[in-house]
């Protein structure tokens, strides 16, 4: 009895592919079907990433999710109608047309809800999403109960059925990708302006409604194109994740578009390859997981906007502030010998530094030239005392400003002053001085 589960677990362990197989798949030489699927998903990822940038920047991510769910009833209804008309009901163009139609109906409902009620976009999207999906499930179960022949494949649109992708589908993806890219390249100006500031765009004569409509049409087209590749539950992931990941790496819109396309395309390409190499791995889910992995890496390691970079900056600032405190203390007490060890011991006790902080501050001060010497005789340099004097002066300036002009009680300024004195820029200090000199002038709001 104990052996049985182990035995069955052992059976599901994947056969790892050989290097030759991996290379064959990655270079698109492992058979026509695999190649078609790989090309199709790559192009889909590319198109979704490019269009997704504008859905994201226009803050329409929830809307795209609602639209993707609203495709389901269309697929079921198209099947029913096709069968009633004597078709097989498995014709992909008819099913996708149905999907596009109900997605459009969903979009219209969304607009109507926003226009005629006081609901916000999140609630309106939630309604369209859930009602659309519910209606789809009802239609699909009707189809399955009443016309079982040929209906089996319909559920594939929910989770994706990448392996069933044919050459025609890949061509459809290609056309979608090319159209999306052409439109985005031609209208980057208008798309960026509408996404950034729609009121200004409208005043300038841009038909904002038309631009939004165009983007939504492209979103629906990409969604419908992606139904086969990743399924309607996951298609929104490919519209949102690549742009979000791309945003971590750049501050330029065109580069964000390029990166989002590349990330989406890479996810599609690698996802289809992994799925071809490892049996029983659904390509749609693998593609989305890969995109998610790229997002996670971006979130962590992006140079300016990444979490790690931000943490490093915060730690650096804390070290700088602690070092400033030490220099300030040294300046204030005017230690004749300026012995760093004495100063650090005193400041550590005053400010309750953890034990590990002192050596870090010591080396930071030496690195910045504010202390020199070695072993037991590390002294604070003239430059260090100058910095201490500067911090001290900032402290006084800011306190005077807060108490004198911002009407902050004297006993409430300590924390704010402690933070601000280290980050005052030269310009801000000049302004502060100006304020203090020319009394009685309206006080500008200085960002703290």
């Amino acid at each position: 009895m104990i052996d049985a589960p182990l035995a069955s677990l052992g059976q599901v362990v994947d056969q790892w592919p050989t290097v030759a197989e991996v290379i064959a798949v990655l270079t698109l030489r492992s058979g026509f079907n695999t190649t078609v699927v790989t090309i199709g998903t790559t192009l889909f990822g590319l198109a979704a990433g490019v269009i997704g940038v504008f859905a994201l920047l226009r803050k329409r991510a929830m809307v795209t999710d609602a639209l993707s769910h609203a495709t389901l009833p269309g697929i079921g209804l198209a099947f029913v109608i096709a069968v009633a008309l004597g078709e097989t009901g498995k014709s992909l163009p008819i099913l996708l047309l149905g999907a596009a139609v109900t997605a459009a109906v969903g979009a219209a409902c969304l607009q109507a809800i926003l226009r005629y009620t006081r609901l916000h976009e999140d609630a309106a999207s939630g309604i369209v999403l859930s009602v659309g999906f519910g209606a789809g499930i009802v239609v699909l179960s009707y189809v399955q109960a009443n016309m079982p022949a040929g209906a089996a494949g319909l559920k594939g649109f929910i989770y994706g059925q990448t392996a069933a992708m044919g050459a025609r589908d890949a061509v459809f993806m290609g056309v979608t990708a090319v159209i999306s890219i052409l439109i985005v390249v031609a209208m980057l100006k208008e798309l960026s302006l509408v996404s950034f500031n729609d009121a200004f765009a409208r005043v300038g004569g841009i038909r904002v409604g038309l631009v939004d409509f165009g983007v939504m049409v492209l979103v629906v087209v990409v969604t419908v194109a992606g139904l086969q590749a990743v399924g309607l539950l996951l298609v929104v992931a490919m519209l949102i994740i690549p742009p979000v990941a791309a945003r971590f790496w750049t501050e330029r819109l065109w580069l964000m578009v390029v990166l989002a396309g590349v990330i989406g395309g890479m996810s599609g390409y690698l996802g289809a390859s992994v799925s071809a190499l490892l049996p029983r791995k659904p390509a749609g889910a693998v593609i989305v997981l890969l995109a998610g992995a790229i997002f996670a890496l971006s979130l962590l390691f992006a140079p300016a906007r990444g979490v790690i970079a931000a943490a490093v900056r915060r730690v650096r600032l804390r070290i700088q502030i602690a070092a400033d405190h030490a220099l300030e203390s040294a300046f204030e007490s005017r230690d004749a010998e300026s012995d760093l060890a004495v100063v650090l011991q005193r400041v550590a006790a005053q400010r309750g530094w953890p034990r590990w902080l002192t050596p870090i501050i010591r080396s930071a001060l030496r690195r910045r030239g504010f202390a020199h010497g070695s072993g037991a005789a590390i002294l604070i340099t003239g430059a260090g005392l100058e910095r201490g004097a500067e911090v001290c002066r900032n402290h006084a300036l800011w306190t005077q400003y807060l108490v004198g002009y911002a009407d902050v009680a004297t006993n409430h300024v300590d924390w704010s002053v402690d933070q601000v004195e280290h980050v005052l820029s030269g310009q801000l200090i000049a302004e502060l001085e100006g304020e203090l000199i020319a009394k009685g002038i309206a006080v500008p709001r200085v960002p703290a």
Partner: protein
Amino acid sequence: MTPRSPTPAGLSALPEHSADSPLSVHAMTVAYHRKPVLWDVDYDATPGKLIAIVGPNGAGKSTFIKACLGLVPMASGSVEFWGQAYRKARRRVGYVPQRESVDWDFPVSALDVACMGRYRAIGWCRPVSKAHRQAALECLDRVGMADFAHRQINQLSGGQQQRVFLARALAQEADLYFMDEPFAGVDASTEQAIVGVLRELRESGCTVVVVHHDLQTVEQYFDDVILLNMRIVASGPVADVFTQDNLHKTYGGRLTLLAEAAEAIARTDRPVR
């Protein structure tokens, strides 16, 4: 221009719209979700003036600008620019929206934003040429932001962002400007930069309508003033109109009969939330 008192719609004489006045508003009423925020506003702007719109919070100052520009629908009334509909006069009108109305964490630089003021001149589906980029850069220079041209907009201070918005409007090369709270939350140097630009604009013959919140500086910065609280309490040259009495009418008695009527109308609509 003499101070006006509000006239009920239908009873007022037909507007004497002239092609001289850059902005003629006639019987403008605006409602948000059926709650009126502006009642029967009549206004004719004198060309070449710096005009402040002043009034308490919720008085409809921003709404007035947005309704003039067609950003919010009017329940009734008409707006003409040099005697023409906005559609035809659009090229001569510039706009500075409220700074808080956009998400500044957008992947563009200060110069990119200034270039947006040139898009109308560039036209659809064409790239921004070097000449247009240079023109946008000069506009940034006029507001003292040339050094920050390639800075990411989310790394600018509030005052710098406001100046970028101003540069974008300058790039529109308009004859009539609408500015929505350009002085809100800016530092002293930005305030001086904006005032400098306003005076330059007046010297070159432009008319500028500015939503303004600081009563202290109205007399110093502006020629004309519109005192607004759901209706125009008074409008005209600052010296004539900006009086203690008018200010009291504008700011005093927060819940006037007008506001109560607006509430009553709003209640007839059943909100979903």
